[in-house]
């Protein structure tokens, strides 16, 4: 695509559908894992059928408690969280959460299940448990979980472990497997390549950045477990840089996320190489953000004569 735009076209004439490794989404915008529950929670505040996709709260093979409070703390243009992946577990997910998701999927929204685990085998078992489930389109692996067998080192900071967990999940699943990369590494592209070599269909870039917020008077961390994951607009420049790097280093599609608040933010991620985007923290502040971003992206394309939104992907101009 050239740097010049064409004459404006009608908004309804813009094709805003995207293709993420064969998974066609009616628009590029999904809700990110852990920021939208299992679906019904947000359905009272927004029209869920306007979404391109929906990514569930992480699911483990057994229910997890999560951490003691305080679990969240606001920071400048962002927030820290240490929820601890509290989740209902695979069995309750299949029994109680899939009926809503099946309806959501029938309304044209792609449903992606985020998968968590403490061992390679746990990821594999969730993938197997979700085989043949007709309520979902793809899996997204959260590899920022501590690997208890490896002494608590996150899968997401070790290329070999990330590759192993990807391969085991791909082997257990009948669905495309996306891997959500951690930004807490020195070379995120090599992590992406390790996942690609082991069968990942796409890469979600990025998860939260590890941070710390303290209360000076008590000299204690604001979160019960100390550190937490930073999200929100504060991390957008990091996320854009990593989206650009990973999308150039890897040949599988990248789904971009990190601090998206507006259509402009979302389009910037696409220009930097993201085939689709996810919205997270903004849902907490304005549950209608995703709807508004979709509209805004369509409008932006129409005004500049961009007939197909996917033509923008990876068009960052480098002098």
């Amino acid at each position, binding site marked *: 695509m050239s740097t010049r735009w064409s004459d404006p076209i009608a908004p309804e004439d813009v094709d805003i559908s995207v293709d993420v490794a064969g998974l066609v989404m009616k628009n590029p915008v999904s809700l990110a894992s852990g920021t939208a529950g299992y679906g019904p929670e947000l359905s009272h505040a927004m029209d869920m059928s306007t979404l391109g996709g929906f990514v569930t709260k992480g699911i483990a093979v057994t229910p997890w*408690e*999560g951490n003691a409070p305080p679990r969240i703390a606001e920071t400048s243009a962002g927030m820290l*969280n240490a929820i601890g992946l509290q989740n209902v577990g695979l069995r309750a997910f299949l029994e109680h959460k899939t009926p809503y998701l099946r309806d959501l999927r029938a309304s044209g929204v792609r449903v992606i299940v985020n998968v968590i685990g403490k061992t390679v085998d746990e990821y594999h078992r969730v993938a197997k448990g979700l085989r043949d489930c007709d309520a979902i389109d793809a899996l997204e692996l959260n590899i920022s979980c501590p690997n208890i067998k490896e002494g608590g080192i996150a899968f997401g900071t070790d290329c070999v472990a990330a590759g192993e967990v990807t391969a085991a999940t791909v082997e257990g699943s009948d669905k495309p497997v996306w891997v959500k990369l951690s930004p807490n590494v020195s070379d995120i592209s090599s992590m992406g390549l390790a996942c690609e070599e082991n069968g990942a269909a796409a890469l979600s870039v990025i998860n939260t950045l590890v941070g710390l917020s303290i209360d000076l008077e008590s000299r204690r961390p604001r979160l019960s477990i100390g550190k937490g994951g930073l999200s929100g607009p504060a991390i957008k420049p990091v996320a854009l840089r990593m989206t650009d790097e990973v999308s150039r280093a890897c040949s599988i599609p990248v789904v971009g996320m990190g601090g998206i608040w507006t259509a402009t933010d979302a389009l910037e991620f696409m220009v930097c190489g993201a085939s689709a985007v996810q919205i997270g923290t903004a849902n*907490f502040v304005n*549950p209608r953000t995703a709807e508004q971003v979709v509209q805004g992206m369509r409008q932006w394309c129409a005004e500049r004569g961009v007939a197909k939104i996917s033509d923008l992907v990876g068009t960052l101009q480098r002098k």
Partner: protein
Amino acid sequence: MHETVATVVENRDLGSGVHLLRLRNREVCAEQRAGRFVMLGVGETVEGNPPAPMLRRPFSIQRVEGDVFDVLYRVVGVGTTCMAAMKRGRVVEVLGPLGNAFTPPAPGEQAILLGGGVGIPPMVAMADALSANNADWKAFLGVSSTADAGCFVGFDDRPSWDSRVHRATMDGSLGFHGHVVQAWLADREANPSVTKKRVYACGPMVMLRAVAKVAASLNIPAEVSVETMMGCGIGICMGCVIENKRFTEGSVEDRSTMSPYDRWLMACTKGPVFDAQGIVLDDGGLLH
């Protein structure tokens, strides 16, 4: 629940950093029940940018009059500092009403309302609801000293209630000298009655712990409204949890029906009103 906006009608300075914010929105008022709350967008917004501060802030709805609802707040941080600067006519983003509500007393039961400081608002909402139903109630309200008496505004604005309302201060500068639970117990001693009671309370965790303990010893059912660090108000951030006592201390039968997922309850969707004996009344001491 509505994702909407409300207009500031009044932002009354009640002294010592305590303010009464009155907001106009018909839909929110129509769905209010005593105990519910709203998330308010309090930050300054420039189009295309996130507000600062970013997260909305939770406030109990104190009173509904027509299409105006009131929230009471104390300036404690950047969010409430922004609120204190709000002028009449300002448009505020509102999500709500949210959460559950207090269980009304059974016929013949007397409601005992216990409110501490900026935890008094849900007790105003209860007093309004009980009065509208001609139910029997008494309120015991406490602040640290007369300087904080602005917290009583919802009761001060109803002089006809005065015979039912007992005010207390920790330093004795106004009304009963002591905390609200002491004021309630002193009144029980002075005016014994056989009427069945039901307790409703909101205030600092230390007060709610005392309420739960006393109510348990007197075998009186009690509901408490808790404040926790809340991110979204609708059950998606999972930040605002409080510990489920049935999980940690429950019977074998109780525990057999629960999974580890049930240990932490979201105050926004499972609460903010809980059975006082059903949760661990501890906020980790880091709320503000």
